[in-house]
């Protein structure tokens, strides 16, 4: 049976077909739907780990025990998982282990554009890169076979334009892969220096073997057409190149690390000019140049953003690209009724320095709330607020983090703040879900990835156990109550935590809420400062769009003249 399928769903299918038993991941765009889909197969234990490091460690453990395992994350997640990755490259595997990493060139939903291919090179693990949904499903099985054949974790890389593209996939059967025998083997799995020295030599020998073998992998293939130009490419770029330059010869890489250097060298000899088209870093280009293969790449394309068919036509073929009309931007917004909005409104009003974090609430940075001073990486709000407070003890700065992000990597920052006594105030925006990635469960929601009940991590008790002086829980719809607690916490020299608790509006609507209306607006514009998509200024007065308003009442709270009601 054939089905039009999102590549992330195809990766889940590929894992199921290839006999994967364990999947552990942390949600991150554009990788999230892989694990949401493996969770639909009862033969696979699928879980949301608190973060990518734990997820990879779970994968390594399952592999060591003899099971085929898969771990999924976005590019920045691989930074978090880098610690186990570099040493798992030494231990190797027992059951096959595939790490799926999704890069986001163009930053559709990310804070940087890092190129994960360098992890493969630095950790000396092979990396494969599919070019559509069907290939993605096949490559999961291939990666697992490679993993077992070469005794190494294998990284499967996607980018947004692969992960979130749909094409047709043939649905196959599951191949049951029996657990491999587990034998204690300390020199392989216990990385004391004495053992690790031996394993490093194994890694080097393995990579040399792969460098030779990849010359004949059928997934690295030459498509000879017109010999005037040859293009080396992989993944989504392969599809763009085929579209933009249908007559060009192509060396399509299925494995992007290690590269089949000698085979590309042969291809280069058959074409007049060799072009490397790759997004982000000159990863392929520099390796070819280092091996004496002349080619053209980044001098045409640069490092930033996505490469499209139009970019290729423009940079390679010299065709002018159409120019976009200048129109008002439409950045994403906190939803109407979002429980985060009132918190940011108060923080903005009190001129707090806000060290924020990664999630929907990052959107509090945009006008008119303009409440956020910094966003760096998962959990950074705490460390940064602590550092900021030490450098400027009189600052009224706060750390703001979501519930899922706090569990991911905020807890250690809180422990540090208490241990080193900066007296910061932490606000946990607890909306009972992982919002931005599409509502995944986490340890504090009381539900697993597979929909089963789980013990709920108690955030209040956890924070108290970290040693904070006080934990207050407030409803973020009650801005007055929040402001009172916040002022009290800011005046305190001790570390304080405020948990603003209300379910994400997309998950749980306000009970019996009616859309609000504005009567006799005096045009003061206070309500517009909330940045609510349901409130529009028309002829100098505020108007509420009844089709969008979800009755959160924040505008009613801020209106100084009582003009807003049901």
């Amino acid at each position, binding site marked *: 049976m054939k089905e*039009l399928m999102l590549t992330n769903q195809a990766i889940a299918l590929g894992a199921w077909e290839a006999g994967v038993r364990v999947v552990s991941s942390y949600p991150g*765009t*554009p990788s*999230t*739907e892989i694990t949401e889909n493996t969770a639909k197969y009862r033969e696979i234990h699928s879980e949301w780990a608190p973060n990518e490091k734990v997820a990879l460690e779970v994968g390594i453990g399952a592999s060591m025990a003899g099971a085929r395992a898969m771990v999924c994350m976005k590019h920045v997640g691989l930074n978090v998982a880098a610690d186990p990755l570099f040493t798992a490259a030494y231990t190797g595997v027992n059951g096959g282990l595939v790490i799926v990493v999704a890069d986001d060139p163009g930053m*559709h*939903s990310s804070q940087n554009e890092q190129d994960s291919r360098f992890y493969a090179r630095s950790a000396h693990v092979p990396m494969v890169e599919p070019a*559509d949904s069907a290939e993605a499903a096949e490559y999961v099985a291939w990666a697992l076979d490679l993993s077992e054949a070469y005794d190494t974790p294998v990284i499967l890389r996607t980018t*947004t*334009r692969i992960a*979130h*593209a*749909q*094409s*047709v996939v043939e649905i196959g059967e599951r191949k049951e892969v029996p657990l491999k025998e587990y034998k204690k083997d300390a020199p392989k799995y216990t990385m004391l220096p004495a053992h690790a020295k031996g394993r490093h030599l194994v890694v080097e020998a393995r990579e040399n073997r792969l460098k030779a073998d990849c010359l004949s992998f059928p997934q690295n293939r030459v498509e000879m057409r017109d010999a005037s130009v040859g293009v080396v490419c992989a993944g*989504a770029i392969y*599809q*763009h190149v*085929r*579209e*933009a330059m249908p007559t060009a010869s192509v060396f399509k890489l299925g494995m992007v690390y290690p590269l089949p250097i000698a085979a590309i060298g042969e291809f280069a000899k058959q074409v007049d000019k060799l072009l490397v088209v790759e997004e982000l870093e000159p990863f392929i280009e520099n390796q070819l140049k280092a091996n004496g293969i002349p080619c053209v790449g980044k001098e045409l394309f640069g490092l930033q953003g996505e490469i*499209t*068919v*139009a970019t290729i*036509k423009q940079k390679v073929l010299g065709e002018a*690209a*159409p*120019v*976009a*009309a200048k*129109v*008002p*931007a*439409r*950045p*994403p*917004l*906190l*939803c109407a009724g979002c429980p985060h909005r009132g918190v940011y409104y108060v923080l903005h009003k009190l001129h707090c320095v806000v060290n924020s974090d990664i999630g*929907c609430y990052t*959107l509090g940075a*945009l*006008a*008119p709330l303009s409440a956020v001073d910094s966003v760096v990486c998962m959990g950074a709000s705490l460390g940064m607020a602590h550092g900021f407070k030490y450098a400027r003890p009189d600052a009224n700065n706060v750390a703001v983090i979501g519930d899922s992000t706090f569990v991911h990597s905020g807890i250690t920052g809180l422990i540090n703040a208490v241990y080193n006594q900066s007296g910061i105030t932490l606000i946990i925006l607890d909306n009972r879900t992982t919002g*931005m*990635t*599409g509502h995944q469960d986490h340890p504090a929601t009381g539900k697993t990835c597979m929909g089963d009940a789980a013990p709920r991590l108690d955030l209040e008790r956890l924070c108290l156990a970290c040693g904070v002086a006080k934990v207050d829980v407030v409803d973020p719809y009650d801005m007055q109550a929040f402001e009172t607690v916040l002022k009290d916490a800011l005046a305190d020299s001790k570390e304080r935590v405020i948990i603003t608790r209300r379910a994400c509006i997309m998950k749980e609507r306000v009970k019996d809420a009616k859309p609000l209306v504005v009567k006799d607006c005096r045009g003061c*514009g206070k309500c*517009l400062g909330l*940045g609510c*998509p349901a*409130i*529009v*200024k028309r002829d100098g007065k505020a108007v509420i769009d009844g*089709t969008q308003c979800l009755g959160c009442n924040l505008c009613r709270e801020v209106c100084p003249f009582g003009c807003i009601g049901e």
Partner: protein
Amino acid sequence: MNILIVGVGGQGTLLAAKVLGEYATLMGLEVKLSEVHGMSQRGGSVVTHVRYGEEIHTPVIWEGGADVVLAFEPLEALRYAHFLAAGGRVLTNSTPLPPMSVATGLATYPDVQASLDATYVPATDLALRAGSIKCVNMVMLGALTKLLGLDYDVMKKAILGVVKKALDLNLEAVRLGYEAL
């Protein structure tokens, strides 16, 4: 056929793309879709790509490559009009959703009808007439079916295959969109 579906996060561009994907599959054509999830879904400008035909390589439509820009909001039609190929057409909902800069009075909503040669459909009104503002996407699919001369019955079949909720309402929205042109 390259159809760029543009709109505001929450207007259902993903579902519309899925229906068109199903339509092309039912017609026995190769089809590829490209979408973006995550941050851009939160009320921001969204783009979904639908390509179908005999042989499709990239799932991503390029600037100058769209046969149709199917817009669920007029400002978004204007924003992505440069994706049109020579001879391409814009089909757009005529009801604006002002972005935050316009809503707060910091920017002016452009006069789209004056600057963009397009087929305008009162899709928001028709969706409300069908019973829900959420089916603007289905109204626009109906209008697209008429504009491109697609097979109405196959389109209905595609919707039945993809849309799981409020079928009567959605089919009514498609009908209203179809008859609006």
